[in-house]
């Protein structure tokens, strides 16, 4: 373990600050996190969160990068990343519409909202439209049950939604559909 730490830290200090060998400085943010966590292998999930925050999704390259940095087999990193629902392996769309499908939202008709957006923009839940403008997601429960049904559009939590109001929201950002 200590051997790992030394080697990896040397790797970072070898090069100039703010310049990643790949030319992509976003890797520096991952490095910073790895260093703070002293390259502990149990920091894997946190590291994947940071990587996804920085890159928007986890490409194979990123998974291999994290695996090497933490000296974990890529199979394990891939196994962990695919186990958890919040990790995504495709670039996200320009806008994200997340419909909560928890119990309270289900009782209040969240399913219709998902179907409505899915049909209007021809995008299955969990995927991104072909033009890359919209990602439609569902969430287990956002814990805002008093506001059911809840939709999160580009990070903004909106309560008491219905299919029409959600479609208006999406249309305002992405553009309407014929």
């Amino acid at each position, binding site marked *: 373990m200590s051997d790992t730490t030394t080697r990896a830290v040397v790797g970072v200090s070898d090069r100039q600050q703010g310049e990643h060998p790949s030319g992509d400085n976003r890797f520096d943010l991952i490095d910073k996190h790895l260093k703070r966590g002293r390259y502990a292998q*149990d920091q894997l*999930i946190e590291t994947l969160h940071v990587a996804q925050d920085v890159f928007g999704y986890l490409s194979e390259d990123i998974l291999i990068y994290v695996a090497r940095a933490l000296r974990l087999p890529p199979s394990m990193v891939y196994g962990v990343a695919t186990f958890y629902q*919040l990790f995504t392996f495709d670039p996200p769309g320009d806008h994200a519409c997340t419909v909560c499908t928890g119990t*309270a939202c289900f*009782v209040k008709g969240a399913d219709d909202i998902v179907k409505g957006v899915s049909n209007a923009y021809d995008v299955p839940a969990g995927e991104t439209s072909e033009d890359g403008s919209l990602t439609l997601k569902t969430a*287990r429960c956002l814990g*805002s049950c008093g506001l059911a049904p809840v939709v999160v559009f580009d990070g903004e939590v909106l309560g008491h939604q219905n299919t029409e109001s959600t479609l208006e929201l999406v249309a305002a950002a992405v553009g309407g559909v014929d």
Partner: protein
Amino acid sequence: MAAPIDLHEVMDREREERFRTRWRVKACASTACMSAGAGATIQAVEDMVEREDMELEVQVIPTGCMGLCSAGPLMRMMRRGGDETDYQKVTPDAAKEIVRSHVLNEEPVPEHLLDTTMPFFTSQERVVLANGGVINPDRIESYVAHGGYQALEKALTSMKPKQVIEEIRRSGLRGRGGAGYPVGSKWSLLAAAGGKTKYVVANGDEGDPGAYMDRTIMEDDPHRLIEGIAIAAYATGADQAYIYVRAEYPRAIERLDRAIRVARRNRLLGRKILDTNFSLAVEVRIGAGAFVCGEETALMASIEGRRGTPQLRPPYPTEKGLWGAPTMINNVETLANVAPIIDRGGDWFASIGTEKSTGTKVFALAGDIVNTGLIEVPMGTSLREIVEEIGGGVPDGRSFKAAQTGGPSGGCIPAKFLDTPVDYESLRELGSIMGSGGLIVMDDEVRMPDVAKFFMEFSMDESCGKCTPCRAGTVQMHNLLQRITDGNGTRRDLRDLEHLCSVVRDMSLCGLGQSAPNPVISTLQYFRSEYEALIDEEEVVHA
């Protein structure tokens, strides 16, 4: 090393600050109210106070959840040493008018008044949520001013670890995460375990859809949780603790991180806490969207950075837990009860609730009900009181059909059992469970086989895939339910469904699979005719 915080000095200072202005405006800044526009409301009041030079008259205090989420944004006007007036649906303009009217004319604003004499407020008993709507969660001083960290100081300076456990045992506190295991016994197990390193883990992986009390505690009263963890660690001899939080709760993660830093700076965490020989490090660990991680062995795997799949028990975590060391996992709400118990005594706590289920329980009231929000009632309160009085009944002239408790592991309770007292045993007898406290009310428009299918889809998606009965069984049950709810089911499908219920329940490795059939079993038990109606029609068509 900096000197530890002087709790009494902070209390005095806060009291002075409290009396500094004639008016205090408390505004709910919890998630539900923020989504309803509380951010703009608070900003409007702050701007006005500054612009109109009212700083000597008015102070604005953002607080945690005031409870009645459906009436947000909520605001409270408090007169120095005097009365309080609560307001609902407070828009920025309304807020300015309310503050002006109180400060300049001593007059309330009738349009937005919130009636705090209604049962929603009067029937509650707040222990866990006592600080909701009272303290500013971002300031440790505010927590201390309301008695915070007194229990930790008391435990560390005047009680032996054994006495702390004895007090918890006397309180009768049971795990609030669902199963209701006696907390005192769990603590004794960890205290008795050998080894140099022991861990305490707070389970904040609140995965039950419909429950958000743990989120509210972590966001709105983070120090209460930290204090509970510290007392638990002192009592059991642990020196490292983790708070495992679902990644879906970014605000809770942020608040806890900050609270831990502040607690450490004040020597309430870290080395030699409050100048005693007790040391404790606390760290937040984040999930990544896996319901099964609420199960304690899966949760530990996730903390270690691995796939969150459960292990067979025994060995129990208190024997062999995180990295092989003895570990104790308590739910967030459970730990939030600890400080009040140490403060006021186990006997006081045991006097609330029923003989076997002591204390209070927080419920997230949602679905087809007038008043949605977080409520806290003594254990043993009847479902009828919760639904009809506190919840204000079912809206739109519809009638009550069922209450769902326990999420995907629980069941649906029909109207004829509305007078059941809500406690661990009574709910289990009805085929449901207490669960973490989600309580979803359904009106007569809801089709129960659809509800069963909804939960089975959840369990199917969330099954970790480690054991076959759960992995394959939930898929097959979902297929059968899909066929039945589509109107294509046969009598044989219904028989297969019932058979699979017992297979999955009896053969699965962990609680997820063992309880996954519960929503089907309970809806079949109480609403069988709805399943049969779907089947009979189809058989007629076939004939």
